[in-house]
């Protein structure tokens, strides 16, 4: 157990990488920031997942939307992006935006004010969120980058997607460590899920088959203060 308590500035610590020639920061809090474009991407917020499950009898705490928005507020305050892209599954179901508590809706609208905000349509929320500003799109191309919810089967250089909720696992000194991660091969990037109640799926699962050039696969595993770049060959399934 180590005690490196010095808490360096998060932005400076965050790892910079290149995707299709565009420089990006993988923030350990689970967002991707492109300084050149002043663009922040976040994926799979799954807002109102709590109330969605409550409808079916699992009365888990109704605070996930609040918790997710507070974290989003923090990263937006840090980066002050001009453009925010929510990469789909922003709400856990189509009725999510309608069920949102008034205080949360206000908080979200305050975040959106003064920037371009794009809702990429996801499988959980194919329609535009009811009563919220922002532009709903199927996909979005900016420079050499393409933002969409589900990674396409055909390889697209510069594609940023979500949907799969990647995590990675390593074993070190007989112990297993599993963390959410950004998964990329230099050409495309799959983002971790940001929502407070979202689970995750190992990048070695067959759902990812064919998506990456395996020889250059990297998992940027999320630590508390930085991301850890782990090469694909060190990863374990499960």
């Amino acid at each position, binding site marked *: *157990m*180590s*005690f490196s*308590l010095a808490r360096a500035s998060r932005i400076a610590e965050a*790892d*910079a*990488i*290149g995707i299709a020639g565009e420089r990006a920061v993988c923030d350990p809090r689970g967002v991707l920031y492109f300084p050149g474009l002043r663009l922040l991407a976040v994926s799979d917020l799954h807002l109102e997942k709590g*109330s969605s499950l*409550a*409808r079916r*009898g*699992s*009365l*888990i*705490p*109704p*605070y*996930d939307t*609040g*918790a997710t928005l507070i974290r989003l507020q923090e990263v937006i305050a840090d980066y002050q992006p001009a453009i925010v892209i929510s990469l789909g599954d922003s709400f856990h179901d189509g009725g999510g935006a309608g069920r949102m*508590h008034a205080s949360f809706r206000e908080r979200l609208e305050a975040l959106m004010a003064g920037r371009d905000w794009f809702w990429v349509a996801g499988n959980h929320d194919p329609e535009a969120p009811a009563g919220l500003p922002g532009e709903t799109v199927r996909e979005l191309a900016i420079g050499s980058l393409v933002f969409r919810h589900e990674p396409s089967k055909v390889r697209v250089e510069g594609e940023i997607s979500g949907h799969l909720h990647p995590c990675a*696992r*390593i*074993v*070190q*000194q*007989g*112990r*297993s*460590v599993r*963390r959410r991660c950004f998964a990329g091969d*230099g050409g495309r990037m799959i983002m971790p899920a940001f929502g*407070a*109640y*979202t*689970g*995750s799926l190992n990048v070695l699962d067959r759902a990812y088959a064919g998506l990456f050039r395996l020889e250059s696969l*990297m998992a940027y*595993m999320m*630590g*508390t203060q930085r991301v*850890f*770049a*782990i*090469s694909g060959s*060190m990863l*374990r*399934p*499960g």
Partner: protein
Amino acid sequence: MTEQPRLPDQNATVILPEPFLRWFGEKGWSPRAHQLELLAKAQGGQSVLLIAPTGAGKTLAGFMPSLTELADRPKRKPGQARRGIHTLYISPLKALAVDIERNLGKPVEEIGLPVTIETRTGDTPAHKRQRQKLVPPDILLTTPEQLALLIAAGDAKRFFQDLRFVVLDELHSLVTSKRGHLLALGLARLRTYVPGLQTIGLSATVAEPDELRRWLVGQNPPGGMSELIVVTGGAKPEISILDSEERVPWAGHSARYATPEIYREIKRHKTTLLFVNTRSQAELLFQELWRVNEDTLPIALHHGSLDVAQRRRVEKAMGENALRAIVATSTLDLGIDWGDVDLVVHVGAPKGASRLAQRIGRANHRMDEPSKAILIPANRFEVLECRAALDANYLGAQDTPPLVDGGLDVLAQHVLGCACGAPFRADDLFEEVRTAAPYASLDRTTFDRVIDFVATGGYALKNYERYARIRLNKDGLWRVSNPRVAQQYRLNVGTIIEVPALNVRYVQAGSRGAASRGGRPLGKIEEAFLETLTYGDTFMFAGKVLRFEGIRENECFVSNAPGSEAKVPYYGGGKFPLSTYLAEQVRIMLDDQRRWNQLPEQVADWLRFQADKSVLPKRGDLLIETFPRGNRHYLVAYPFEGRAAHQTLGMLLTRRLDRTGAKPLGFVATDYALAIWSLADMGAMFKARKPSLGSLFDQDMLGDDLEAWLADSWLLKRTFRNCALISGLIEKRHPGQEKSGRQVTVSTDLVYDVLRSHEPDHILLQATRADAATGLLDVSRLADMLSRIQGRIMHKHLEQISPLAVPIMLEIGKMPVNGEADETLLMDAATLVEEAMGPGIEE
């Protein structure tokens, strides 16, 4: 031998019906005094607790009131309504219920009683359960979970209307767990259905019989107790500690050194029962015994993770006296017939005097012959512990743990179960719940919060009113809001939370599990262990060395690797905490040189060396040694309070030492001691009183430091997961529903984080903290210790490691520090990548 005096025959005839007397006569037996006494008290309308050693005829005694009453019952006339259940028998084990069916069926048949006996367990087929509802047997043998299910059914009240007796077997083991809480609530419900209901508790000897006596009767008024019958005696067991010719190791749990001596004892006896504390110890001992088994004696292995079919085969062979030895874990602790065992070997320290007594009781089912037992300490501290346990056994000292208040998660489950059975009025249910001993001090506010939790989650943010599971209707009754709620309840009933585990199956070596699904099942292993394995790793399980071939969905594939060394050790620290009583006894022994000559010479020498090089702690003191070693400084403390409490202490002390600039690097905890290592010279710091040891060990560490550490502790997350599952917040996993337990694990951790930051006073977090205080963290014991050692800390600053410190120093590096060091491991892995690929990845 102290067999009870028999009552004169004329007394017996007063209460024993004629067919019983004839039966006893035919057998050449006479009823034992406690059997008649129990019958007399039961016939007088009393509930009774019977405490008796194994082999005292406890089971027959427990059923005597039922059988005599059933024998006298007039025959049912044609056209008369069917009679309901007369007696409910509840045991902690399915196997025990089945066993009783057989053992009770025999006398019932021989006496010629018109009594039907049936079991109802998780294994009972649906058609039989339905038939039991229509045509109930006179005596139903079942488990606490099945009782909860019966209560949650719409016809519960009618089903139990003729109930006269509830017989609770192995009560001492039932009451200490959440299963006991659920059962106590179930009993309270039954008492409401049938106000005159009588209970009969059967128990091994316990430290506080009055706790069990209160448990057996409604606490209305509070403090009421059942009658008590104690059968003392049984012959004193002959217990010895192995005085090995070999060197007793400093540390470790394997007791490998003693294998040849254990084997010699097996050869000398008819059947030997070998107890160990953990599964991994069982595997290891089994392997070691077969390594020296030149005569190929039939030696078997039995533990809870093995495949059921294999366990049944072993149990059957045992009953038929076909085995010479059986290596077993606690699954065998409970009372099932084990044939002619004439020796019990306890490998590793027993951790509690009562546990030792109960295990040794297994050796001999005839209470008038002495049991014979040998204790095999696995290391030097265990020698002291075995000695203390042995002395306690001769004194008849008991150290069963005190009962704790009923869990609120269990109460939530019960409340929902009651609603599934019938609408209830909150006032009535509150009164009923408080008659259950574990909930006797429950206050109304907490109860109402539990109801609120069951209904809508009980959140301050009232968001879920429209999704309520139970609703308060205009008539003042709480009702289930829709039938699906009851369905969900039935799937989630019970308080046993299984650790996520995978089935282990055989495949051909190198096949990586593909295309070979049909391999023989060997049992189940925890997922957490399997996750650390890589293809080709070897480990021990089911008495074999196996090679890990891979995991697919919920199966783990392995191949045989005979002759290989098992490379991957499975950490096998104690599952049971060292009892407070034994800890005290060990401290007393260390302080009393005269008692050292009871110890094996090499252990006594070790203590003399310690006295020479350092000092031995006085019985009430806490000894702390500091010394340098390599480029590190060490602090070793000897509280003897069990690993859980030491681990919590270690966490808290390292936080404090960090603040004082000692630069602590890590710590390791055993049942006996705690070692912390650091970069700065802690000994010099304590000498300069910066900080003083008194302030370092001040009780105030249980305030903010504990709170801050708890917040992120994986221990609390695990505890929360159990509470969330038991309370019904999150559904249990069922076979085939999900691939693995991961979804549950992840989501309860996430739910915990969110709930803690938004509503830290939520009732489920309250339940979690209460659990952790007595369970994984053992905060209560730590608190007692900190208050005991105020002003009694003895500091010894040494040039080098002391003899007493050697065992714990050997544990450093062997024991994983769970959960807290993940970031370091990730850093190591990322650094490897950087080294291999150079800095600035894809920059």
